[in-house]
């Protein structure tokens, strides 16, 4: 544990944890789009910037992405200086130009009182802000199914060679983690579609409720040594089975003592 100072308040923090974690633990709200606890930080959205200094820096300060900056003893941090607010507003305006139709960006702009962007809007700009949360979570999973393809303006997230990702197991983690809800998927009676791939959804052998994709169950089974039989029935039916099994034990114990 080390002591740091956030907005004038002395705070205890875990040595080496990222500043953003400490700041958020204090209940201080700073925007962050590309951060998620389940993936390695990458500092791409720049929204989580804070000002840091130390006593011995003789009045000098730095602006750093807090999601990527490890805590050090005696850091002095400011999270909402006028300069930082201006910086965040500029970044939000850039995102408004990049993704003019994103509700998440619009909401964030609203919170900062921004009504229009001073940058030239990409009229058909999609909602992908290139934060790589999706590729990072897929890597965490060990699938590495998606990555960035092409360069510059044409850069997109997709499977290798801009084709449907062969290594995708259809778990939806990428779609769930995407901060701007850009990644689309659909579930219907016959299966799931994501990244232009079609997946079979497992159906509970008792009640028919759809659970996860067959590929994802097989992936867990292979990587984590879970028997495929664990995926035979759904959670509702499993709880009913648990009640019945325990019930049987109770009944036979009662009979034995009579």
């Amino acid at each position, binding site marked *: 544990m080390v002591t740091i100072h956030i907005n004038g308040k002395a705070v205890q923090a875990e040595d080496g944890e990222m500043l953003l974690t400490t700041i958020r633990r204090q209940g201080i709200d700073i925007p962050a789009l590309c951060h*998620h*606890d*389940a993936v390695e930080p990458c500092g791409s959205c720049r929204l989580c910037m804070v000002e840091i200094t130390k006593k011995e820096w003789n009045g000098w300060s730095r602006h750093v992405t807090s999601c990527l900056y490890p805590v050090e003893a005696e850091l002095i941090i400011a999270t909402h200086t006028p300069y930082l607010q201006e910086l965040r507003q500029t970044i939000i305006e850039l995102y408004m130009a990049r993704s003019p139709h994103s509700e998440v960006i619009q909401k964030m702009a609203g919170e900062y009182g921004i009504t229009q962007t001073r940058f030239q809007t990409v009229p058909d700009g999609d909602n992908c802000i290139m934060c790589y949360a999706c590729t990072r*979570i897929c890597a*965490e*999973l*060990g699938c590495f199914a998606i990555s960035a393809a092409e360069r510059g303006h044409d850069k997109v997230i997709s499977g290798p060679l801009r084709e449907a990702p062969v290594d995708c197991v259809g*778990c*939806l*983690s990428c779609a*769930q*983690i995407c901060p701007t809800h850009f990644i689309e998927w659909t579930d219907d009676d016959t299966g799931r579609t994501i990244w232009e791939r079609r997946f079979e959804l*497992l159906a509970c052998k008792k009640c028919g409720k759809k*659970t*996860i994709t067959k590929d*994802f*169950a097989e992936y*867990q089974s292979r*990587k*984590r*040594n*879970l028997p495929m039989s*664990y*995926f035979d029935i*759904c*959670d*509702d*039916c*499993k*709880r*009913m*089975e*648990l*009640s*019945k099994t*325990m*019930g*049987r034990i*109770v*009944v036979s114990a*009662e009979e034995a003592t009579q």
Partner: protein
Amino acid sequence: MKYRFIVEPWLCTGCRTCELACAFSHARNLKPGRSRIYPLAHAKDKYVPVTCLQCDDPACVKSCFFNALRRNEETGAIELDLGRCVKCMACVAACPFGCALVDEVHDEIVKCDLCQGDPACAHFCPSKALRYTRLP
């Protein structure tokens, strides 16, 4: 593990007090959470309070690729770190007892956390079918 959660189904009357206690003690934004425990009838008027067994070799922990599920060695509970959860449903599908649950109201995955060592359900169970006791 110093403590153990004990369920004695033959004492359960199916009154569902545990369910209320759980839902309210896990409330957020003034909305009760999905209860992590509830009595299920296996025969007429015979109930088993069904909840997470905090397995020694937990399938949910194995199934989570993001380390969102970890054992609290103090309480013995397997706790879900919501910050790391991406709702991939792996644990919900993998738990052999169906005790990783989807809370539709809060749009979250939930499971029994033994209330950080003071389970509300055991506290309120009027027939003492649920107990949380220190191991000798």
